[in-house]
């Protein structure tokens, strides 16, 4: 079970969190004309990298904040965690 550092609450067990997927995906702006292909990429296509990955976790049984976690997908090593509005490196 992972041990995730929530920037708001401190280190907590994985079972307090829900996984939220790739944190690098950016939603297209509202009211912007975009192609089917672009929209499709946003809704469906995700990379599944081996190694470092920036992902979202939701501290649902804690502060209810969405946070960004930089994690190695093969070793589970967590390098750094960020608040939702914090700039990532």
């Amino acid at each position, binding site marked *: 079970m992972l041990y995730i550092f929530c920037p708001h609450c401190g280190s907590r067990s994985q079972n307090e969190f829900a996984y939220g997927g790739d944190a690098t995906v950016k939603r297209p702006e509202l009211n912007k004309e975009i192609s089917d292909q672009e929209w499709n990429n946003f809704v469906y296509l995700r990379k599944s990298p081996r190694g470092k990955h920036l992902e979202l976790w939701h501290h649902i049984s804690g502060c209810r904040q*969405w946070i960004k976690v930089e994690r190695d997908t093969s070793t589970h090593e967590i390098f750094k965690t960020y608040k939702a509005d914090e700039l990532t490196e």
Partner: protein
Amino acid sequence: MSQDFRLDNIGMVNRNKKISFTFNGKKYFGYEGDTIASALIANGVHLVGRSFKYHRPRGFFGVGVDEPYAILQLERNNERDPNIRATEQEIFEGLEVKSVNCWPSVNFDIGAINNFLKMFFPAGFYYKTFMWPPSFWYKIYEPFIRMAAGFGEASIKHDKERYEHKYEYCDLLITGSGPSGLASAYAAAKNGARVILAEDKPRYGGSLLTSDVNIGNQTGAEWSEKIITELKSMSNVIVKNRSQVFGYYDHNMLVMSERISDHLPKTQKYLPKQRLWYIRAKEVLISSGSIERPLVFGNNDTPGVMLSSAAKEYMKVYGVLVGKKPLIFTNNDSGYETAIEFKKNGVNPLILDTRKEPSSDIISEAKNLGIEIKFSHVVVAAKGYKKVKSADIAKISDNKKDLSNIENIKCDCICVSGFWTPSIHLASQSGNKSEFNEKIDAFIPKKSKQKENTIGSANGKFTLEETINEAFDKGYEVSNKITENNNKVSIPTVVEKKSTEHDKFWCVPLPKGKSYKRFLDFQNDVAVSDIELALREGFRSIEHVKRYTTLGMATDQGKTSNLNGLQLVSDIENKVVPQVGHTTFRPPYTPVSIGAIVGREVGKHSKPTRKSPMHEWHEKNNAVFVDAGVWLRPRYYKQGNETLFEASKREAKNVRKNVGVCDVTTLGKIDVKGPDAAEFLNRVYTNAWLKLPVGKARYGVMLREDGIVMDDGTTTRISENHYHMTTTTAQAANVLSHLEYYLQLVWPELNVNVVSTTEQWAGAAIAGPNSRALLMKLFPNTDVSNEGLPFMGYKEADLFGIPAKIYRISFSGELAYEVNVESDYGNFMWEKIIEVGKEFQIQPYGTEALSTLRIEMGHVAGSELDGRTIPHDASLEGLVSKKKDFIGKRSLSRSAFTKSDREKIVGVVPLDKTTSIPEGSYIVKDPKAKLPNPKLGHVSASCWSVEYDNPFSLAIIKDGKNMIGQKLFAMSPLKNKTIPVEIVSSHYVDPEGKRVRA
């Protein structure tokens, strides 16, 4: 009481407390502190089971977790516990155990015929034999295998014992209380670290209890007693015995099972049977020690053949002799320690040493004690069927290939020592890649992967001096890193006997003309010949050889067999062991009961139960409840002998005719507040929200980004910047997460806050033509007329002194209101509604009537919004704004979602007006069409229309909008029904929606 094999002046069992127990129905005595194994051996019993494949007689091989044979079935308080290791289970008064895997008895086992048919049981036997035809599996092969194999028998009754889970955090977890565990725990604890020291056995001390050493002028046992007493008195230390750390998981979480009551006749009040500890440790020191390796020779599985260290522990800890004419067969000095112990207790052993001319302190001591030693000698084969009676021994050539001077020697046990294997299981589970150490012919942990270090003999350190020094240093070093304290304790002086090098020889060749079985894996009956066969058949990877032969599998996890198996493969393949590699060690290190894993989350405790504030009233009024997610909701209120069908029809009819009240507390409620709340809702919902006035409610639909409907509900503008959102019961949590996602990550510039208020409000839906009349009496000071409180209006009012909120919204399709009060007043509100409603013929209605009402109105719910439908499919396209953008809008223009024959919701009525259509039925054109019959869609919800008194269903079918009036068929292959139906509008009752506005 006479115990022929009990020694009087040695051992740690409590001689003042006799304990009786039964084994296979026969009564025996032992002492408090005995295990089943030690007590049986004291009584001269060695035959305890039959082997897995060949049903060969099985005795005791080890003395603890390493025991591969003595696995028994235990009964306690009419509860069965299968697969108990006799070497671990302590005896208690009234304990009943029996052998497994033998029928009809351990002495006469029919399955033993397999032993004579062994040419038919080679490696991969099951794969080769039980393959074809597949139909034989179920009826013939599986029952056969189950009967012939299988260990214990699990109870099929509910386990009434209590198991608990515990979460713990510490600076340092130490797994094992042998010399390295004690020393490191002491050093770390004295340096201020929060330490957990876990010991698998009842007694602390590990090898110190049995070895002849001196630490700081005390015997090993005395020193360990002193250290453990001091550790127990320290507030920063938790010391646990009977506790096995069995798994090492990610981010330094380890799991330990504590056997709290397994050694007692009955679980004590307020205590669980077992407790599972989830331990998050900053650092881990693995001090799990090492297990002696067997030597391999003919019939080495005969009862009476056992590890020499086990024989020593039976003497020193339990005061029990495993034999009176012992043969010690060794390739290193450890066998001598056992021999010396025998001699000290008045028994004359014979040592066979594979080495030619070794010399060391220990060997000299043995010689001085007059123990007979034969160098360059081996055991060729054990003789005797149910117990060792003698052994064929031989001289072995210097190159270890040829045997000579074979002779038969009388003996009653053979204690073997093939050197030591570090227990690296936990280190390996943590991800530590081990490395092969030539000096000890075994793997030891390599570079730390997580925050773990392995110390002592688990790390290949086999002298006490090295172990103690390393452990004190590590304990200090690790604690210093965490606490930054510098309290270093002094390391005591160690006196031990020096030993010399071991012999790498471990497998005795077969004499000419003999085909003895030489076993590697005692639990799974894997012999040398099986590995040879697997390699001949082309298996090369050690992982494949393992699975093909079953070497190192099951509960044993290769504790005694692993390395010898690897050695054999490398010998045959002419490789060195590191090239062959070892198989993966997986948790659990030792078996863990399912009860402990599940803990207290069983039965109704497997998930929380949520009840509305009116729950007790429902109970008192004969409500029959249904699970709605984690909520309990009244399904119907039973009157007399009514069935569900009769009751729900009565309740629904009463809503249409008079007035009904339904508990809607379970609906999800979210407070949306902030200056940008309107803009936020406008982006979340498909319809327009910017112009909703204060005091008005609106129905809304929200989508996922892929265009699929996520949820629906009404949201009311309470004040300028405050909205009250409702969600379906099932989606409440998802919707909140969804809103938080957009507010925190996508549109952080919006000044809005959301919070769940589901628990804060109790809700009652009052529905039916009499509802306004009832409301007027409930709220005499509030104008609830059609003009004062129009459809989709909202008002705050006073309910007999209690502040209430009235929303004029309707799910039933009737004139209806939802009244909310703070949860604590829920029951008061409910009772008032019932009391005042009497004169209007009010009746409470449950979820079944609620469904009926919404289905015949064509209101969609979870069965239509099932994660596959877009607004069009549920006839909600009118709510989709063309002007503004919102979550998921771009997806709605995808070609699949704009097809002209897109699925749409319709109503379905059986032509005979009597046959109910099962939910999930297919709608087809031709019921006789060839299978698979092309389906047009499926029936999502069915009810008995109380308006028309005939069955009515909703269905989502292809090109639904053009299907109205068509005669089709509903088919339910599951219920074997084909029903001719007519497709009608989904709005079966009051299609214009006049009633809700009345």
